[in-house]
């Protein structure tokens, strides 16, 4: 997968920066934690 194939993100991630990816991972985790807390 060549890097220049994507005009957004890199060959390793769809996000523009590591920080952006970290923040999305954090948001997804908090949503999952909330759902586990409420429904399990």
């Amino acid at each position: 997968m060549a890097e220049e194939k994507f005009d957004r993100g890199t060959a390793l991630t769809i996000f523009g920066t590591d920080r952006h990816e970290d923040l999305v991972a954090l948001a997804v985790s908090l949503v999952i934690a909330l759902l586990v807390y409420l429904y399990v």
Partner: protein
Amino acid sequence: MVYTQRTPWTLIMGVIMVAYAYLVQSGALAGVIKYLGTDRLTGEMLTLGYTFGGIAVLIGLWQLVAKTAEGHIDYYLSTIGGVTFIMLIAFIVKWGLDPQMAQWGRAAQPALGFNFASVMNLNYVVMGIVAGIVIVNVFKVPGWAENGVRLSRLGLKTGVILLGALYSFAELQQLGKLSVVLIGVFVLGSVGLVLWWGARRNLPNSMTGVLSAGVGVCGVSAAVAAAPVVQAKSTEIAYTIGTILLFGVICMFLFPIVGKALGMGYITFGAWAGTGILNSAQVAGAALAFQPTGIETLKVAEIFNITRVLFLPIIVIWLAIWYVKREVGAKKVDVGQVLISKFPVFVLGFIILFLLSSTGIFAPARHYQGAYFDNSDKVMVKKDRSGKEVNNHLKDPDLQLLQKEGEKVKRDDQKAALQRLIENKKLMSIEDDDTLRGVVNAKILSKEGNAVLAKAHRAVRHTAAKIAMFRDLIAWFFTFGLVGLGMQITMASIRQAGGQPLVIGGIVGLIKAVGSLIVVMLLVHETI
């Protein structure tokens, strides 16, 4: 650029997943499930099959009929095809290949003299990564799946953050101290060794700098993070990434085999993998390959990995100062700005989940490794599936054995805890449980005596439903991330390694792996 491709494959994979879940639910696959021994997985087969299959059917239909324009919706929804592709491979490997391989391993044991599936670690983690490597290098990842494959690192990071919910203060305190010492020595040592050696071999400062970050801290991310401060060229970053990938892939497959051959436990292996392997994703891969049926090893390895990642800003500052001293005209470094910009936010997420869990919202307070203490009759006397009553109090032969071996226990607090256990036929408090766990760890009693104490421990420790759910979710996030990671390990990127950087990186990586193995075997014990 429009990313959505008009393909029937997302829809087809969705229909396969839903149909599989339906066949499991209807009992049509009961014979196959019984043959493979995967009865305990039917719950996740239904939930995941219907959920991912349903989403893929909807998005697959939309991709076939809707006109897509460039934008966020196109970009993010185009990942669904790749995510479904990875999950389908994960389903096949985890629910089909893994149990089948285990059966073949057992069947061939009399002829071969060893269980090849166990010795070669042919479990779902290893086979999932290998499947990914084979797909990308032999068949090529289909164009409609490429965007989804680029989400695998997000899956791994989400898994690490959720893992924070499973630690208790006691574990983190003990593992944390150990990891800071071990990681501190090996990270700083390997960065220093690469910098020293690179200078002696007259490598460009930018090449040496970026290689030292990659070999010392956390692989690819560290190389990319350090590149701007040492003004590394893209070819130098590529050399470093190639070296790290080649070394990391070898370690990922070799570490679990060596760990099993040396009879390492969860803690020793987790500590070794977290210290000795260069890249975060491959640490997770090795830990799960070592223990595919539980996440105790992964938990230990990730503490070491996170400690290593936390060293990243410090290493970047060190490299920046080192580079400024050696290069005329290099820009001076703003330490505060580097600390803020390079701090890995997903580690903060891990800490947030740990703090949330410590408040007792996911498991009763003072849980240990996700298990909480309850010795009330409500949980000590239960009914099994057939409705028969099962009493988990210790039985007379167990009590007689403990009574007989009691004189081996010399410490007063341990003697008192053992006496209370014998009188009440069950553990009476968390403190007694902790005290007698110390007796087990110190191997004071015979093997049979320890087995009775372990039985008493299991009877009063219960896994909270929320924690059990976190464990399942974490295992699936890592499975998704690792199959996707396999699809990113291309021979082209590994071939980028070569020359002096490969020699220096390889030898320093090897010193770190062997050195950390020796230190772990000498200093780390299975007592946490």
